[in-house]
């Protein structure tokens, strides 16, 4: 009796372990694709002069507190767009613009329990205040640490660039792209921007990093992003992570789906547990309890 119970248990354990383990190396997932109506931004750091007009324009466009004379140091609950200066040996090596990258396979969307984060019109990732619980899993998940939380508020919001969707809807461009005097950041459809970036590289390969075969950051990184970057220095020095071509979400999904495919495993486990308990209880009743 106790032997086959043990065997049964072993079976459960092995099945569970098998699901978790076999989930890891399964078939390679296809690279995520941009939605057909995707829009984005192309930021060319070699054109940026660090004037921060875009930072102010972003605040105006999004009705955020702060002004040019007291400029923010980093993204925050008040700031959706920032220009940072990167120095090497005391010289300005490059500027870098930071805002939401609008990933093709966004970790924040995968993380969000209640669908407050979603990839909506034009592939833009927006946050819905009517759903968010404030658990901040999006912040943990975002590979660029972009979503910000209003720590000092009793009714806090998650703040991040939504590509000025409200402006796009009335036929205007995002605030930062309108403001840039050097066209260092431009707005366009994802397809156009990708073509533009490739053309710049083809025309002036010497301007961009790495020498020889310049890289468009966002073409493949973390599954790809709708915001694309070009720069003359290593992106790692500009504060960007080395993500590889696969998104973290793709691995997490393989594991989670491996365990929960069709919800079969939990239901089966419940049935087996119930059956074992029922049998144990009946056996106990026969022998007059314990």
């Amino acid at each position, binding site marked *: 009796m106790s032997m086959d119970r043990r065997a049964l248990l072993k079976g459960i354990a092995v099945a569970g372990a098998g699901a978790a383990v076999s989930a890891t190396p399964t078939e390679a997932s296809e690279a995520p694709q941009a939605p057909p109506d995707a829009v984005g931004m192309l930021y060319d750091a070699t054109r940026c002069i660090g004037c921060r007009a875009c930072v102010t324009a972003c605040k105006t466009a999004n009705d955020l507190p702060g002004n040019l004379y007291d400029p923010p140091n980093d993204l925050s609950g008040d700031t959706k767009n920032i220009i940072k200066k990167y120095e090497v040996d005391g010289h300005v090596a490059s500027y870098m613009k930071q805002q939401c990258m609008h990933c093709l396979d966004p970790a924040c969307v995968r993380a969000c329990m209640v669908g407050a984060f979603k990839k909506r019109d034009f592939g833009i990732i927006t946050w819905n205040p009517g759903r968010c619980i404030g658990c901040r899993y999006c912040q*943990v998940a975002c590979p660029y640490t972009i979503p910000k939380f209003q*720590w000092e508020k009793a009714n806090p919001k998650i703040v991040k660039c939504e590509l000025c969707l409200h402006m796009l809807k009335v036929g205007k461009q995002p605030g930062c792209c309108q403001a840039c005097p050097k066209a260092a950041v431009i707005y366009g459809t994802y397809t156009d921007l990708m073509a533009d970036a490739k053309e710049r590289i083809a025309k002036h390969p010497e301007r961009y990093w790495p020498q020889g075969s310049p890289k468009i950051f966002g073409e493949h990184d973390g599954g790809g992003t709708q915001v694309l970057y070009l720069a003359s220095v290593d992106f790692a020095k500009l504060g960007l992570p080395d993500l590889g071509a696969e998104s973290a979400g793709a691995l997490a999904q393989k594991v989670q789906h491996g365990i929960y495919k069709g919800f079969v495993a939990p239901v089966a486990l419940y049935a087996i547990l119930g059956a074992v*308990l029922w049998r144990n209880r009946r056996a106990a009743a026969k022998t007059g309890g314990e």
Partner: protein
Amino acid sequence: MAHASGAQPVGGPLLTRPYKWLLAFLGLWLVILFWRFAAGIGAVSGLTDGYPWGLWIAFDVVIGTALGCGGYAIAILAYILNKGKYHPVVRPAILTSALGYSMAAIAIVIDVGRPWFIWRIPLGGWPDLGGYNWNSALLEVALCVMAYVIVLWIELSPAFLERWAETSSGWLQSLTRWGLKVVDKLLIWIVALGLLLPTMHQSSLGTVMLLAGHKLHPLWNTGWLPLLFLISCVGMGYGVVVWESAVSSAAFKRERETAMLTSLAGTIMVVNAIYLVLRLADLVISGKTLMMFTSGIYSVMFWIEIAVFAAPIVMFANRRRREKFGTMFRASILLVLAGALYRFDTYLVAYNPGPNWTYFPNLPELLITLGVIALEIALYIFIVKRFPILAGVPAARSAH
């Protein structure tokens, strides 16, 4: 499944001097909580956009629920492997689980920024149905934990119903007796849920951190996270059961359950050994062998974890030493510490959002966590003194 046999209220006065101190501290806790909800999370914590999860999530929730796995770990032995001799520790284990999970739920309400929308989780996102994100491991955790809190209190309800059936009269007495019958009928299906739900959410707590991607150090970031979290919560569960039995026997002058606890040693050795084999095999298979030694502070943390997981195995290896109460007690602390360290590292120490971020909990943040623990202790003492939870008889007599 008449595990009630032998359980009785400890009795004695409730408002002892230490208990009054505990209540006073809980008063201070409520003041800090008021401050948190009035002024925002930033006012009472060291949390930042780089470290959005800190002590409250890593300790109160992730470690707290694993500390609450005593009920799960003992139920596997008592009900599935049918080892009847463990029945005397089932009830205290379920009580600590019910309290541990309820405290984790309270900590979540304190931690989330917009708790007034939490009700959307059990209601499927209502009124905006279809908003659930079934791909979110955290949703799975949230749903399972909510359900499991209810399951645990139902599993524990006979302790309350038995007491009320004795002390009440008239229709109230018939109601509690009827309640006891209903719970007894449903018990196996509730116990089965009590086994299924922790299996699901304790593993998912590991899956949650997979999304952190490059921010989680590769020594911890592996596809086996769910499996490792599941196994380590079982080890922690046994640790808590042994520790609780030891402490409550000293605190309430009950007889020690040494013989029964010693027999747990074999199970504990197996569980921790499986964990260690999987943890190391995973790293070797995924080509991270060198990384175990070359990652600086992360390597140090990693080996401390491994040592603490291995220590109880070494301590139990000698049969004579294992039978000593002191060995069992010390090993139980290490068992709990091992799983707790693994969780703390995965959620905080090995989580690195970038060079410009640091995190250390500040005083109010720490006091909020201590308050959650104080509340748990206060409720535990109240319940075991007034309701039949602990077995007063020696384990040897109640076992068959």
